[in-house]
């Protein structure tokens, strides 16, 4: 009896804690192979939360919108641990993140989907995420699938006059998937893939990999994370003069690459990434807010991170409670037409419309963020090359 009482008190306490604040979980790859890319993304998440709380917070009572951050380390095991804790111990309403595709798939399959919690990833772009759900509608993302980026990259390679290329990809969900899409699109566009090999991330040396591939072509399509072998592989390729032209995707697009390898060695290197169309009014609104808060507005996945956080908060607000069940349907409602257009930062306006029973349609910093049947969004891509010792991005039309 005593135990039961105690348990009841505990549940009551938990319930009051939940009523006072709305907490969402935010697993991000703070450590691991890409901390450089993730740091500004985490800042964007915090900025969105700050805007929400400044402009009246959640629900009629103005409750705090709290982001509980955890480290998913870009690693499936670490992500499962982090999200298990967020869902079971911190009792979060939804999950914003994780960053990497492998981590997102692992945590969704083993933790968040069984628990019925919505995952809204800020940057996971593997095509495998589109088709992972069977009958549920719980996994969303604010970054475009690599099914599009791989094709954009292949078109770019052809446009740059590359007709034959060797492909090397790190053996994980994200890199293997985009390498597959790229190879298929490149061959379909008339190019020849001379060799296509997986490499294991995080090795001290890739000289034998580079030698095996280097005998076949001077061009390398490299799909890896910069922090778990990508830089070493590029360095080995340059040292042995096996390759001179490199193309690749977001995982390699970091200042770290320039600092480590040297701008003088990166003359014919092009990496693509998911980008935002800077000409939209939504991006303009975001840029003003980001500049004021000293957040790099155009860095990879930074606007996507802001959008994800804002959308999650809007979905919870529209659902009327932090109850996990209603969030997925509500997320679709606030992100798509019909409804009054809401731009980044316009929390008070959205809150007023929702309170009056109206409908809203969030247009995000990174794109219009209209979820399709798989919870995916369309996206645009940019190509980055080294100009004057720094990455210069240009939108691919």
């Amino acid at each position, binding site marked *: 009896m005593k135990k039961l009482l105690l348990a009841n008190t505990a549940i009551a306490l938990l319930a009051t804690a939940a009523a006072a604040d709305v907490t969402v979980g935010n697993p991000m790859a703070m450590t691991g192979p890409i901390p450089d890319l993730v740091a500004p993304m985490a800042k964007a998440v915090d900025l969105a939360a700050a805007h929400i709380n400044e402009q009246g917070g959640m629900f009629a009572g103005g409750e705090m919108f709290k982001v509980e951050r955890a480290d998913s380390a870009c690693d499936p095991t670490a992500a499962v641990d982090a999200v298990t804790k967020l869902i079971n111990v911190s009792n979060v309403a939804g999950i914003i993140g994780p960053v990497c595709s492998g981590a997102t798939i692992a945590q969704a399959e083993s933790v968040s989907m069984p628990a019925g919690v919505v995952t809204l990833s800020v940057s996971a772009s593997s095509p495998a995420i589109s088709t992972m759900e069977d009958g549920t509608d719980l996994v969303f993302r604010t970054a475009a699938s690599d099914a599009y980026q791989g094709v954009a990259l292949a078109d770019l390679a052809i446009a740059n006059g590359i007709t034959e290329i060797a492909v090397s990809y790190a053996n994980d969900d994200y890199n293997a998937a985009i390498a597959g899409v790229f190879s298929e699109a490149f061959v379909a566009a008339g190019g020849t893939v001379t060799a296509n090999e*997986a490499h*294991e991330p995080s*090795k001290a*040396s890739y*000289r*034998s*990999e580079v030698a*095996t591939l280097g005998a076949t072509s001077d061009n390398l399509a490299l799909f890896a994370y910069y922090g778990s072998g990508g830089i070493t592989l590029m360095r080995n390729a340059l040292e*042995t003069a096996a390759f001179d032209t490199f193309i690749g995707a977001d995982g390699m697009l970091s200042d770290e690459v320039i600092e480590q390898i*040297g701008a003088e060695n990166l003359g014919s290197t092009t990496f693509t990434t998911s980008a935002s169309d800077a000409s939209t009014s939504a991006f303009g609104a975001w840029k003003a807010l980001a500049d004021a808060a000293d957040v790099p507005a155009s860095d990879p996945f930074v606007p996507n991170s802001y959008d994800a956080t804002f959308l999650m908060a809007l979905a919870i607000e529209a659902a009327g409670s932090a109850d996990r069940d209603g969030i997925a349907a509500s997320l679709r409602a606030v992100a798509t037409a019909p409804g009054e257009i809401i731009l980044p930062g316009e929390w008070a306006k959205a809150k007023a419309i929702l309170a009056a029973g109206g409908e809203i349609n969030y247009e995000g910093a990174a794109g219009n963020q209209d979820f399709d049947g798989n919870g995916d969004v369309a996206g645009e891509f940019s190509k980055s090359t080294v100009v004057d010792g720094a990455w210069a991005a240009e939108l691919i039309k």
Partner: protein
Amino acid sequence: MWDAFGFEFVNFYLIPGLVLGCIYALGAIGITLTFGILRFANFAHGELMMMGAYLTWTIMAIITAVIGITVHPLIAAIPASIVVIYLFFWTDKFFYKPFRKADTIKVVMASFGMMLILRSAVQVIWGPNQLTFVPGIAKPNAGLMSWTDDIGAILLIPNKHLLIFAGTIVFVVVLSYILNRTRIGKAMRAVSDSPDLAHVTGIDVDQVIRATWIVGGVCALAAGVFLAMDIQLLETTMGFRMLLPMFAAAILGGIGKPYGAVAGGLIIGLAEELSAYPWIGTEPLLSPGYKTGVAFAIMVVMLILRPQGLFKGRSF
């Protein structure tokens, strides 16, 4: 250039395999000595390697900031080695010594905990981002290249690899002198063979343990610095990634046998790289994605067929 005799095999498979083998060998020496003398598998060894490389980087950065000259990592490693040796003493005093008379599993778990503590400490102090150890790319040594070209072979070896080879040879020679000619070295071997017998013959076991940490610490630091010189960057899991191949090397050579560790390290390093050579036809014999598996396959086969290792070490 690609047509020179054995060009691809020597430059892209054999030499990288030897470089990796040297790093494994130096790390495995510390592991095998700890295993032999203190009788436990020290999981924190890889992290101490990593920490040594970070300390070396810090000392280089301080010297550059204060005097304005860039010192070579091998010079900066000398003051760093003192810090690393004290780290070894400190971890021993607070985390391993209390468990010395307890079951081995307790001290193994303590070392596992130490591994996580050290890695997190590095992430707190230096941050989770990669650090640049030496920027740019290392071109092959031009003198060696033209000289070997004259005799029709073409060797592409950057200076950093020549230094790693030379450094490893110096370390192994000095180590063999210490173990075979000095009093403390003989005492270390005696304790490794039988601690109780060594104790009753009047050997100061505590002194031997300190000597073990010093030798293991210096070798770990050298392995960490050589690894950082090779990959030219620092990141917090670099030591951990080397740990399992180093264990494989120690087991292959025979637990408690420093020469075995050297041989084991070279064999594991070469086996990993050479397994990807197109021995048959033009395709790699084994996809390079499975290189690490080779080290473990060797270790497992060795444990089944000859658990005492190549050099007749202790078997468990």
